Every structure is written in structure tokens, then in C-alpha cells.
């Protein structure tokens, strides 16, 4: 078996333009089987557009993609029964109950009648929705709605599950539970593509691509991305946090200063050999007492770094 056969999604130069706006600009994507692949990017970075193209809802303006060995958008019809899609906003019926929604989805996917109720019971139990069985979706909490949406998306046992910002409307506890469900699905062999703008969620993905204004600016495992930032991260705990921040922002070498509580995270390009000295000296010159340390870049640092590099490239070009 060659490599290509084990790629669930393979996209080359995938592009989507809406009039003047290029929502997705030449996206190359290789998603291997049975992993959770993340799309990390701010709002408007093209995550939803990319997912919609991959399930055949939008026609690419340019480029090509194969999903589960089928060409997009030509074979999208055959793809529908093999993928599950969880939309960004709740898209099941508010005026139907949990059970009615699940039955409707089962019938639409032509799930065998004989096994239908067993499968639905299994899902209700798996996602803890048994008590909400006869409750109208409209009256359920964000977390419950999201579990129902997931249950419906996986009902037909899809090989590929596309989730568009699935946790944007739920509390942290529900988010943790939700991710546990996603890992269980990946363990069972399902491939998942999840878009998010939460750093902590991105860190849980096996692999991820960082999208910025329609372009993929980096991809790899979280660890690879952290290793490849091209930036050193200095953590500063200073006497006067705000004064320290403005002092550091004046230095041309320093690319970014972000405040996290009492700490400042300072991004310094790798070409500066001693970033710690640079930062301490700058603060010392202003008479600010500080405690500086070199730390591992987080995914947020990676994100800031790659989007900055992208801006540099654009300015240079």
C-alpha cells in the first residue's frame, strides 16, 4: 500500500474566491488516517470555507482535492454517506426531541431499520443524553446540543468526521468531555478534522495546520511547530508590567510582547544569540526590576510567530 492510499484527505492548490475576496489561497493538505487533524486560525481565516469545500458544499475556484479516495466536488454525492459533518452553528431541528432528531438522521442515512434503535440507544448512552431523550433540542444546554450534534454526525459510522468549531458554545467541562469523545473516535479508526481558534484545543490535535487569512502558514505536530518557531521566548515577571511592556515594545529586535496575568511573553528572533541579555538590559535601562527566563514556546507563541512571519513576507513582496 502506498502513502497516498493512507491519506484520507489530499488537497493541492485548493482555492476559493468569493468575488474579490480569496477565502482560501492555494491550500495543500495531507491528512493521514485515524488522527485528529486541527485547523487553527482566527475568525475569518478560512477554516469554514476549507471544510465546506472538502465535503463538497462549496465548489473550489481552483485546485483539486481527494477525500476518502473520491474527487471533490465531482464525486461529492458518493462521499456524503461516508462522512459526518458537524456545522459551526447547531443545525439540527430545535423543534424536535433528541430521539426524533436521531431517528430522522438515521432514516436520511438509510441506516438499517433493524439496528436503528440499538444504535440510537448506544449513542444516547455514549454521549450521556438518555435523560434528554424526550426533550426538545431548543430547550437543551449548549453542551447537550453539541453532544446531540456529535451523536447525529457519527450515527452512520463515518470514516471521516469534519467538525467546524465544535466547542465554540460550550463550557470548559463540556469541552473536556467532548475532546475525550473525539479521542475515542480516533482510537476506533475515524479520521477527524477539527477547526478551532482555541490554542489549548489545537494542542490536543495529533497534527495541525495554522491558517491565516486564507493561507496555510505552518503545519505539523504541535511539538514540531513549537520547535520550528524561529523565535526564542522570554518570560518576564517585572515590577511594573505595563511600563515593562512599553519599554520592550520599543526595541526593534523584539517581535511581540504579550501579557499573561503578571507575566510577559516576549518573542525574540532566533538570530539574536542572547535574548535573555537583550531583554534584561532593555528593562534595566529603564530602571525596571525584572526576573527573566527562557521558556518553551507555546502554541500561541507559534501562532503569533508564524502570522508575523507571514506579514513580513507580504511586506517584503
Amino acid at each position, binding site marked *: 500500500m502506498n502513502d497516498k492510499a493512507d491519506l484520507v484527505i489530499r488537497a493541492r492548490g485548493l482555492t476559493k474566491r468569493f468575488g474579490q475576496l480569496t477565502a482560501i489561497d492555494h491550500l495543500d493538505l495531507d491528512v493521514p488516517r485515524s488522527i485528529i487533524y486541527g485547523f487553527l486560525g482566527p475568525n475569518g481565516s478560512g477554516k469554514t470555507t476549507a471544510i465546506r469545500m472538502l465535503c463538497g458544499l462549496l465548489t473550489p475556484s481552483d485546485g483539486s482535492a481527494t477525500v476518502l479516495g473520491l474527487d471533490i466536488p465531482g464525486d461529492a454525492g458518493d462521499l*456524503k454517506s461516508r462522512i459526518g*459533518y458537524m456545522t459551526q452553528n*447547531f443545525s439540527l431541528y430545535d423543534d424536535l426531541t433528541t430521539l426524533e432528531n436521531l431517528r*430522522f438522521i438515521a432514516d436520511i442515512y*438509510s441506516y438499517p431499520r433493524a439496528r436503528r434503535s440499538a444504535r440510537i440507544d448506544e449513542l444516547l448512552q455514549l454521549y450521556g443524553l438518555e435523560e434528554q431523550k424526550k426533550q426538545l433540542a431548543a430547550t437543551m444546554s449548549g453542551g447537550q446540543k453539541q453532544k446531540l450534534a456529535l451523536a447525529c454526525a457519527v450515527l452512520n459510522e463515518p470514516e471521516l468526521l469534519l467538525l467546524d468549531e465544535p466547542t465554540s458554545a460550550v463550557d470548559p467541562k463540556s469541552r473536556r468531555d467532548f475532546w475525550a469523545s473525539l479521542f475515542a473516535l480516533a482510537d476506533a479508526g475515524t479520521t477527524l478534522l477539527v477547526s478551532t481558534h482555541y490554542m489549548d484545543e489545537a494542542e490536543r490535535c495529533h497534527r495541525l495546520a495554522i491558517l491565516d487569512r486564507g493561507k496555510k502558514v505552518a503545519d505539523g505536530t504541535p511539538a514540531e511547530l513549537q520547535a520550528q518557531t524561529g523565535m526564542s521566548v522570554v518570560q518576564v515577571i517585572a515590577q511594573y508590567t505595563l511600563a515593562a511592556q512599553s519599554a520592550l515594545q520599543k526595541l526593534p529586535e523584539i517581535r511581540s510582547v504579550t501579557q499573561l496575568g503578571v507575566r510577559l511573553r516576549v518573542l525574540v528572533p532566533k538570530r539574536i544569540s542572547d535574548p535573555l541579555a537583550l531583554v534584561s538590559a532593555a528593562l534595566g535601562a529603564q530602571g525596571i526590576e525584572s526576573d527573566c527566563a527562557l521558556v518553551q514556546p507555546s502554541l500561541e507563541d507559534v501562532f503569533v510567530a508564524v502570522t508575523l512571519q507571514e506579514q513580513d513576507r507580504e511586506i517584503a513582496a
Partner: protein
Amino acid sequence: MNHSARILAVIWKELLQLRRDRLTFGMIVGIPVMQMLLFGYAINTDVRHLVAAVADQCNSHLSRQFVADLGQTQVLDFRYVVDTAEEIEAMLRSGKISVGVYIPADFDRRTLDKRRSAAHLLVDGADPTILGVANQLRNIPLKFDSVKAAQKRAPVLEVRPYYNPERRSAVFVIPGLMGIILTLTMMLFTAVAVVREREHGNLELLINTPISTTQLMIGKIAPYIVIGLVQLALIITVGMLLFKVPVRGSVLELYLAALVFIAANLSLGLFVSTIVKTQFQAIQVTIFFLLPSILLSGFVFPFDGMQKIVQYIGEILPNTHFIRLTRGIMLRDATISELYKEIVVLILFAAVAMTAAVLRFKKRLD
């Protein structure tokens, strides 16, 4: 088997949603009953009790008798007694009265003069119906003239009103109203049913499932066909009980005609849903279509009286053909084979609208 299961799933879902949507559920029954009560009682071309004023400057025995006779016809309701023709004109202008009777001081003498009329009827002629009624009053005889009246010869033409000898407006209005009610409810329900799914995001999920466009469309309109037939039964029953509207032809044929008409309107509603983006727009388009269906279909104004070009527009409207069918079957005891042209047009209309809807509905978002 797969296909019918998916269609049934959509139908079942629609019914579940409908059961919980009390307002729409109420409208299914409410719209036909309300409109029938309103129009059945309100629309009346046999006009009576026009508010009138009289200026009797003669005030003789004869003139007073004449005014009393006019009042006896019940066509005029003399609410005001004034002195001059100018006062009558002022009241006409202000809309207080529709008709004024002016009797000049020399009324008695003028009644004997064959070349001149004895009195004037001042009519708000802007409304042709009122003018028509006023024209009938011209033939009212003068009492003292009883000998002459007897000598008056019979008119050349005698009118024999077929199908509605009592000249009750409801008999004419209600078969037409059927088409209006069905156009409104059927178009609106289907257009809104699809657009609502788009607005709530359900469609994004649905088009990502293996259901085909045709399955979805059939599942969407099937429940409303049944609702349309229920509405029809309601209209016929209320029409018979309250307004004594007859169904002289075959009830089965009436239902057959309605079935085709309902299919035409549902298909049109589906087509509308593929054009508009919001429920509000769906309602706007429905009204845009409903107005000509009321005004140009022969429901309000006789079809023959309209400009040729407007008649062509009227011929495109399904309601025009349905009204011919309902009036034919219900009032004239006509059979569908006598009216086959109308059925053919309706079938064509439904087929074209349905094809257009299926072609326009894309399982895509762009």
C-alpha cells in the same frame, strides 16, 4: 425502498414540526374560515342601502310620494334631508353619501314634460357598481302615472339568470375564494418551510446527507397536499352550511381539479424558496403573486372585460384556470372532460415549476 424511507422520514419530520407550531397549525384552519366569513358576508354586488341625501325643493304631495317610493326600494337609505343641490354636492365630495336626490321646485310640472327629466340623481360615479345600481333606479315609476305604467310595453330582452337565480353573491364568490385561499396557504407554507430550514442552518446539514433533491422536495410538499385537501373540504362544508353554495357537479372531480391546482401552487412555492433568502422575502414574493391571482384571475373582475394583454397575464396564473374549474363544476354542473383545457394548463404549470425548483435547488452552498 431507500428512497421511500427517506421521503417518509422528511414527511414525518414535517408533521412533527407542524404539530408543535401552533400558529401555523391554526392558520391551516383559521385562514380559510376567516376569509370565507369575511368575504362570503362582505362581498356583495347586489348593492342595497346606499347612504343618500334628498333635497326636495318642490315638497309637493307628488314629490314626497316619489321620495318615499325611492326609499321603499331599499336601494337608497335617506339619512339626510337638505335644501339645495350644492349641499348634496358637498356631501358627495366629503364622502358622507353615495347618492343624492335633487327634486327641483317645478318637479310636478316637469313630470308632465316628456322631453325633460323631472328630478336628478347625483351619484358618486367613481364606483361603477354604485353607478350601475343608480341606473336601475331610472325605471322607477311615478305613482300617479299608474295608467301609463300599465301601458308600458315589455322590454325587448328578458334576462333569465341561470345557475344563481337568487343572485346571491356568495354563490359566485366562494368557488373563486377557494383558489385564493389555496394559493395563499400552499405557496406560503412550502416557500417558508424550505427557507426556514435555510435560515436555521438545517439545510447545511441536510445537503450534506445522502438525501437527493427530489426526495427532499417530495417529502417537503407531500404533507401540504394533504393539508390543502383538508382546507378544500373545510371550504366546501362552510360554503354549503353557511352560504348554501351548491356543488352541482361531481365532488370527486372537484377534488381532482384541486389536487392538480395544489400541486401547481406547492411547486411554485418550492421554486420561490430556491430564489429567496429569508422568510420575509418568501412572504413578499407570495404577496406579489397573490395580488394578480385575486385581481386578474376573474375572481373580482370579469375576465372578458380586461385588456387583451392583461388577459394573457391572467392566463398564466393557475388561479384563473382553477376558478373556471370550480365555478364550472360547482355551479354549472360541468364535467372535467368539458373543462379539460384548464386541467392541462394546471398540469403543465406544476410540471414546469417543479422542474425549475429541482434544477435551481443545488446541494451546494455557492
